[in-house]
């Protein structure tokens, strides 16, 4: 084991400034342009030389682990390598220095890029129309569920319920609830949808069933056509959570599986960087009969000229301002163009190959519920650790010491002490072998080492309960807590 993350003592940027300066002569009214009573008093922001600001953030970056540092097998999040050309493209002024409300004649290239991306996603998803507006996967779900609601309302129906398998991502029930639906959890059978249970759960009140395929255990839902039939016979819709689309490109498609609505996570399948938590993009595709409900504006092409169509009376409206996360869309477009059709198919093949290679090599050291062929990810159980007084969390923390990001843990909820591993297609066999060796080594280690892990990271284990108790969310909050004099812009009693 040779990994050591950098450890810097980086003060909070507000601490970096020198003692408060004497009251300055700045005039916030700008020569009387703004009445004095509408202006602020002091502004407690630091003034630091650029040299020190760069040092501050570069040192912080060294205390952060990204895909470029090493394997990041965070199941369900698809942390693959992001080709650098995509970042390069979005730095061009012709891409970045463009305003969304410009006359359409001055943004024809941008509109064409988005229109072509919609068409490429239609082919990959097996759908007829795509909107690029949603800002992230969860917002794609929100958009899709609004389309579900609009569809039923246009048929004069108010259906109250959305059904989800118990393996669903947390965003699914949250998105359904935000659009006003009750959520019914469907218990799984052998890790997949229990078709008989689904049959009895579906009723006239069912608006839709949300599913990802392969599911969050990495298992392909073979009965998907039958499932679609059950929903469609009941007048309900089938929604595809695209988080796992990277496993099946060119092998099957949500459309071919009879899904009606699908969201795509461009930051996952199409390799746009995750940015420490975002931005992403969550385009939504639909079958022909639902196209009229898509958000406005639609980008329309006529004889090589692109324009914006707002005249869609049945549209659900807007879910985000303007066109969506365009700089993410442009990266995904670049990625798809460089992979091409054949390249995308091999992306899925290699993602599935890497996943099964790891599964094969790790299943004997852990428990392996539902021992079957997996797709791009698989879930182990860390239950054997319990005998040694350890938990999955301890294993995950110890992996950090070996220079690997931890997998997703404690999800899906139906697996005890779950460890969800997604290696992605961009990792070499050599890297995977090292990961296997690290996992095996950890399983043999003195439990004490796992309890105390991590030790090679910028910080040791955190007191997360203290964070929840203290509720310090800002420098201002910190000063208040310390009893220091409150910042100048403290609210005055009214």
């Amino acid at each position, binding site marked *: 084991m040779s990994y050591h993350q950098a450890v810097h003592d980086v003060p909070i940027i507000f601490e970096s400034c020198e003692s408060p300066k004497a009251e300055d002569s700045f005039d916030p009214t700008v020569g009387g342009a703004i009445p004095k009573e509408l202006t602020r008093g002091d502004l407690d922001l630091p003034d630091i030389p650029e040299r020190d600001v760069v040092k501050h953030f570069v040192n912080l970056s060294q205390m952060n682990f990204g895909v470029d540092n090493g394997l990041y097998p965070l199941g369900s999040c698809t942390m693959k390598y992001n080709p650098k050309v995509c970042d390069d493209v979005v730095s061009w002024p*012709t891409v970045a220095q463009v305003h969304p409300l410009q006359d359409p004649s001055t943004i024809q290239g941008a509109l064409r890029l988005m229109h072509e991306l919609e068409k490429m996603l239609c082919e990959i998803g097996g759908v007829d129309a795509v909107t690029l507006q949603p800002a992230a996967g969860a917002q794609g779900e929100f958009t899709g569920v609004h389309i579900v609601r609009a569809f039923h309302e246009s048929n004069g129906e108010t259906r109250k319920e959305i059904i989800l398998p118990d393996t669903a991502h947390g965003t699914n029930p949250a998105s359904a609830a935000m659009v006003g639906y009750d959520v019914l959890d469907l218990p799984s059978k052998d890790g997949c949808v229990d078709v008989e249970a689904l049959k009895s759960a579906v009723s006239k009140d069912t608006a839709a069933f949300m599913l990802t395929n392969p599911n969050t255990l990495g298992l392909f839902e073979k009965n998907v056509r039958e499932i679609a039939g059950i929903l469609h016979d009941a007048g309900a819709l089938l929604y595809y959570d695209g988080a796992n689309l990277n496993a099946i490109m060119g092998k*099957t498609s949500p459309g071919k599986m009879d899904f009606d609505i699908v969201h795509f996570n461009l930051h996952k399948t199409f390799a746009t960087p995750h940015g420490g938590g975002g931005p992403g993009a969550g385009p939504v595709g639909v079958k022909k009969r639902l196209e009229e409900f898509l958000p406005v504006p639609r980008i329309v092409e006529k004889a090589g000229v692109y324009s914006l169509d707002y005249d869609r009376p049945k549209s659900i409206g807007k879910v985000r301002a303007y066109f969506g996360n365009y700089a993410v869309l442009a990266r995904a477009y670049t990625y798809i163009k460089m992979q091409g059709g054949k390249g995308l198919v091999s992306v899925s093949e290699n993602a599935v190959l890497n996943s099964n290679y790891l599964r094969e090599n790790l299943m004997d050291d852990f428990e392996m519920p539902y021992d079957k062929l997996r797709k791009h990810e698989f879930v182990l159980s860390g239950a054997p650790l319990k005998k040694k007084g350890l938990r999955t969390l301890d294993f995950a923390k110890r992996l950090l010491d070996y220079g690997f990001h931890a997998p997703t843990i404690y999800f899906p909820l139906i697996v005890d002490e779950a460890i969800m591993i997604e290696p992605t297609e961009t990792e070499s066999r050599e890297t995977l072998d090292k990961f296997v060796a690290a996992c095996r080594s950890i399983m043999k280690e003195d439990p004490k080492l796992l309890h105390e892990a991590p030790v090679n990271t910028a910080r040791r284990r955190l007191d997360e309960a203290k964070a929840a108790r203290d509720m310090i969310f800002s420098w201002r909050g910190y000063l208040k807590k310390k009893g220091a004099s409150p910042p100048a812009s403290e609210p005055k009693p009214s």
Partner: protein
Amino acid sequence: MLQSLRLKSVNDLFVDIPNEVRIDGLRLPDGLSEIDLKRDLEAMMSVNRPTTIMPNFLGAGIYNHFIPAAVRTIVSRSEFITSYTPYQPEISQGMLQSLFEYQSFMAELTGMDVVNSSMYDASTALGEAILMANRISGGDRFLIGRAVSPERISVARTYAKGADMKLVEVGMDPVTGQVDLGDLKAKMGDGVSGFYFESPNFLGPIESHADEIRRIVGTKTLVIGANPMALALLRPPGEAGADIVIGDAQVFGTPMDLGGPTIGVFACKSEHVRKMPGRLIGMTTDLEGKTAFCMTLQTREQHIRRSKATSNICTNEALLALAAAAYLSVVGKAGLRDIARRNVENMRSLSSRIAAIKGYKAPRFRSAHFNEFVVTSEADTGHVHKELLARGVQGGLVLDRMFPELGHSALYCTTEMHSKADHDKLVGALEAIR
């Protein structure tokens, strides 16, 4: 690798996909090399007309501000850009501390206790604020000022629909362009969750009756929209007693990017924190007692609370929060105030030059402004817009359809990015239009 799995071909990895749903590859062209891709894409993008080749006077929610080179350097660090949500805080302190610093900057500018580590954009922040107002104050109606971006209102309407809430418009004073206090009083009442206004608002005026609005809104939820850049000069909305403050921090270090990604600012009073959507970064210590940061109060979030969560948001705009923190650190207090001052001066200068042209009035409203203002004209605004484009200028946003009560009108924005030559070009073009 296939051999070690005792498989003959890669197809054996997909035998679990039934024939009935199989497809045979993708009907997409073959992949391009990096050099060919760049050549094609450069040609395709060259038909766009960016601000670097055409002076542009649009604002309306997306702003062209200067971005110091150091911000780009910081935001491009691989360790930041290729990481994800900091689920493992020990190995993610860099992003966590940066996000805490973002929250700190925004707390100071807005004068609020708690700021989350981002929403998608200002429009979705408004949507979430309406849902949160409903959690705080109940009710089935939410009031929104007239002078709010139609773009934001249409997004807010989608969010409100999910909770079966109705949006009700509160009128605008025709002289000042600010909130019509009489109309607000008349529309407050039982069943109202709260009220949203902006300062500066969509049409440019800075609101001068925030305290009175707070009194009228009473115990209901007051949501104030702010341009974070303008807060370098303006009284923070926290001082006016806002329950929630929203805005877009795209102004701090993120290019216009055709409107996305941008970053929704979402701040609230500490008493409401458990009803708040989105991720929060909190300060704590590690087992050696060193200061450290982690995500906290996660029981509000979808991955724990599922259908009972305060929001479905997961992926947010973290990298843009880092950009905002880096931007504010680089420009500093003095730099930020100076940029804000230049925006006001440029706005004053441009509006008086336009007002001096026969047939134009600017600014339309008798109020203080930051960097946007309404110009009214005798000439048809659509005609003016086309003529400006023909002269190589992207004029302001045509308002005729959105605000018919203003007659022929357009919303102009000018920032520190405009040179005197840009103003000359616009003014010269307006003078030449007949």
